[in-house]
């Protein structure tokens, strides 16, 4: 509901496995990595010293991102007890399901 033009469009990035922070402590505020696209439009994610290749997928069933908003402290009968607002829609995901490859910098052979 509401004009689709008014809603933000987000993108989903789907990773196999888990992401762990390099140091202890949470993930919040940390850098995940760099996202690139090749000329053919293939997404490439560099996380730490790993590189992942993925693909752009148009979601058959788009997602809606809901944010909970406080309801009335004492709702009257028939009134909703809480509200969720649709903040954004997600119609595209970048799916990374291939095994991350470690990036090894080229070591020149000794002549």
């Amino acid at each position, binding site marked *: 509901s509401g004009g689709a033009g008014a809603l933000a469009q987000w*993108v989903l990035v*789907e*990773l*196999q*496995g888990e992401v762990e922070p390099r140091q202890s402590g949470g993930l919040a505020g940390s850098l995940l990595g760099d996202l690139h696209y090749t000329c053919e*439009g*293939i997404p490439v994610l560099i996380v730490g010293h790993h590189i992942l290749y993925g693909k*752009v997928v148009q979601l058959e069933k788009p997602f809606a991102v809901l944010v909970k908003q406080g309801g009335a402290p004492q709702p009257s009968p*028939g009134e909703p007890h809480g509200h969720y607002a649709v903040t954004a829609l997600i119609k595209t995901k970048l799916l990374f*399901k291939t095994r991350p490859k470690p990036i090894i910098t080229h070591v020149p052979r000794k002549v």
Partner: protein
Amino acid sequence: SLVIRGEKDEQAVLCSKDKTYDMKIADTSNMLLFIPGCKTPEELNADAASCNIIHSQIAGFSNNYWELRRCRPKLKKLRKILMEDPYEGPDSQKDQTLTFSKYTTDLLSLIQASEEEILHQLQVIDACKIEGYWRILDFDYEMKLLNHVTQLIDSESWPFSKVPLRVCLEELRCLEPREMIQHILLSYGRKYVDDGEVYFEMREDKICRAIAQMLLQNAVKFNLSEFEEVWQQSVPEGMTTRLDQLKGLALVDKSSRPETIFLLKVEDLPENNQERFNSLFGIREKWTEVDITPYIQDLCAEKQTVGALLTKYARSSMLNGVKVYNSRRPIS
């Protein structure tokens, strides 16, 4: 907008104006990151100028999400709530204290269905608004009202297809409230206008069915041929009774000698698919498709057939050359 409905002991559903959806949590072992403002390759190509680094923040991540699946509205509760306090007529003492508020808005917050599905069901069960509250008629009172009308039709020699509203209201107003006479005509007839006057085409099948219910509810079971005789005599003169009018209301036991018939109302059976089948197989071990269909028809999802339901919840076998269905699991 959409509404999530359910009480603490129920599984949540999401309702639009006219549809109901089950809400299920879907889990994934993958990690889902959501990134506002992240650009797709197409968007970047269109914006040729950007060779700069775009700093994006990951808004959050999750391992699960809600999935919606269209489902049948859960309407059994509606009937149950209304049956707690059926309307017995204006003379009844009971109505003095209504402990339950049954305004439309309250029903909406209790029933796990969309508004349109609820309003449609209220019509199907012949509920009516009395002093602002949705009520269902007590069956005996309903039969009393119906009887007034059928007796009047008989004494006036009207055809069943052309019963005038105005005259009914005039003739019966000293017996019952106008709204009730109108309600019974709407429940048991089809309204139409002819030459500026409102008429009703009485629904023979529904009238015969109601009278059968009235007869059957007085005993555990009846001798079939005796019942058929009494039933035909009890319906208005000119109407014809047929056993197929009783689908979903009564069941004939062809295996007993003599054959018997007993009341079995589909609306009294469980709403959940598995529970419904368990209940039916508890009543009778083996069912033919013809017999069981009226008792499972309402379980069919949008594009599901009775056959598909039987494949899923029952096992078939042959009995005396006839295909029958029984339970997949032992019934205690």
